């Protein structure tokens, strides 16, 4: 994995992006009913897919984390949940912008809107628990993520039956092939970007865990040295270091 893969992904995303823009604005025909706004679609929908995908990834990683205490899986779960949050926020903001332009109303309680919103809330809760929970709540957060992943289809279905009395807004419908042809590069670009970000986050989390270990080890070494030196000086030195560490932690 290493350092290069995220960079490659970022480079790929950055390279594909101008092509996407070119395709979206110049090569793809205008949608007849909605006109220019429909072009939001090419980033909105891939982001929604990425969000769902990352939600499921987070759930699976959390299950692995619970089963075999893998810190790598834990890091993956955290990173995936944060991508869900970012992508979900993108979806939830661009959706109403699109809705405002076409329907004149930003939030229509459309089944997709509601289910996306609920899913986003679950992963927001995950991030909150991870951030504010006490020691030991990482397992609780993992359970939350697992339920979130299971809820991806359930919520969609639930909202759908909950909406049965309302007219169905079939927004995406069937797409002509040239629109699909534009959608794919956009999906690729966004996926590359979010995967790159996720890998970076995973790397950071793993680095943080090994850093923790490093500090513990070094503390061990210092302690064993002071234990060998029976003089008072070693004790003092140790104390100073500990003070420094504490002040660093507070920053």
């Amino acid at each position, binding site marked *: 994995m290493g350092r290069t893969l995220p960079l490659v992904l970022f480079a790929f995303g950055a390279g594909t992006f101008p092509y996407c823009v070119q395709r979206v604005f110049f090569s793809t025909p205008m949608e007849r009913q909605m006109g220019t706004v429909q072009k939001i679609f090419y980033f909105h929908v891939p982001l929604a897919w990425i969000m769902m995908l990352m939600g499921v990834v987070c759930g699976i990683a959390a299950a692995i984390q619970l089963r075999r205490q893998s810190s790598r899986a834990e890091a993956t779960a955290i990173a995936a949940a944060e991508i869900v949050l970012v992508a979900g926020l993108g979806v939830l903001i661009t959706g109403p912008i699109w809705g405002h332009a076409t329907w004149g109303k930003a939030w229509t309680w459309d089944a997709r809107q509601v289910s996306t919103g609920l899913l986003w809330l679950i992963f927001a809760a995950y991030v909150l628990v991870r951030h504010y929970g006490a020691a030991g709540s990482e397992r609780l957060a993992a359970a939350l993520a697992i339920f979130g992943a299971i809820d991806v289809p359930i919520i969609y279905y639930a909202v759908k039956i909950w909406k049965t009395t309302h007219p169905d807004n079939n927004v995406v419908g069937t797409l002509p092939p040239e629109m699909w042809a534009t959608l794919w590069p956009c999906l690729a670009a966004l996926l590359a970007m979010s995967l790159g970000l996720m890998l970076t986050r995973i790397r950071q989390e793993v680095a943080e865990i090994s850093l*923790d*270990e490093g500090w*513990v080890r070094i503390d*061990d070494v210092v302690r064993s040295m002071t234990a060998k030196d029976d003089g008072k000086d070693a*004790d003092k030195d140790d104390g100073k270091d500990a003070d420094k560490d504490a002040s660093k932690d507070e920053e």
Partner: protein
Amino acid sequence: MSGEAGQGGAITPLALHGVGKRFGRLAVLRAVDLEVVAGEIVGLVGANGSGKTTLLSIVAGLLPQSEGERCFGGRPSPTVEMEHRRRLAFVTHTTQLYGGLTARENLKLFAELRCAADAPWIDGGPLLERLGLSHAADRMVGTFSRGMMQRLALARALAGRPELLLLDEPFTSLDRPGRRLLAEVLAEERARGLAVLLSSHDTDAIIEVTDRVVLLEGGRLIDAAALESDDPERLRYRAAVQGLGLFSARSPGPSASSTAAVSA
């Protein structure tokens, strides 16, 4: 000395190999090796925050350790399963009793739960009497004093007839007679073959009841007899351990000789 069978085919109820516990970059326990054999009372001394409660919680299976191995009866057990929980009892300094039940009901509830888990039924009545609680057996535990709760928690633990008893700070709220009672009861149970691991920051109290003391300092088990330092607290530990007279006999060569050198 290895975790297998001690004298007379008895199995070592508890052995820890390199157990460590970390919360982030805070290492609460580092590579702790500890064995407790049947019929032995081991004292775990250490200042506040030295990791005593964490160690006991790991042994009781309430916390997963970050590294190392925990063995019951010579077998490594990643999780503390039913079979293990039937054989160990844990008395914490929060006494963990239902305040809305009477003393007798508290004992009965746990006896019934054990019974449902295929353990023999043991009547708590005699135990209540032994621990001087028979007069309060039908009072709500919520009205008990701390010391009484402590004794009741001990009664509940012993009612399961465990092979391994974990006591976390058992002296904190006991008065003099209470401590003497605890020492007597522990001695009786030891004769039965009970292994006890008991923690305290009170070095004086622990000497009265234990066979051997280990010192937990900064998350590390320290050969308390070999401590050489000007720190008065450490000296106190060493003096306490030497006063016990048993540790040096059991500890390996170098530390024993250093103890001899110091005492000479």
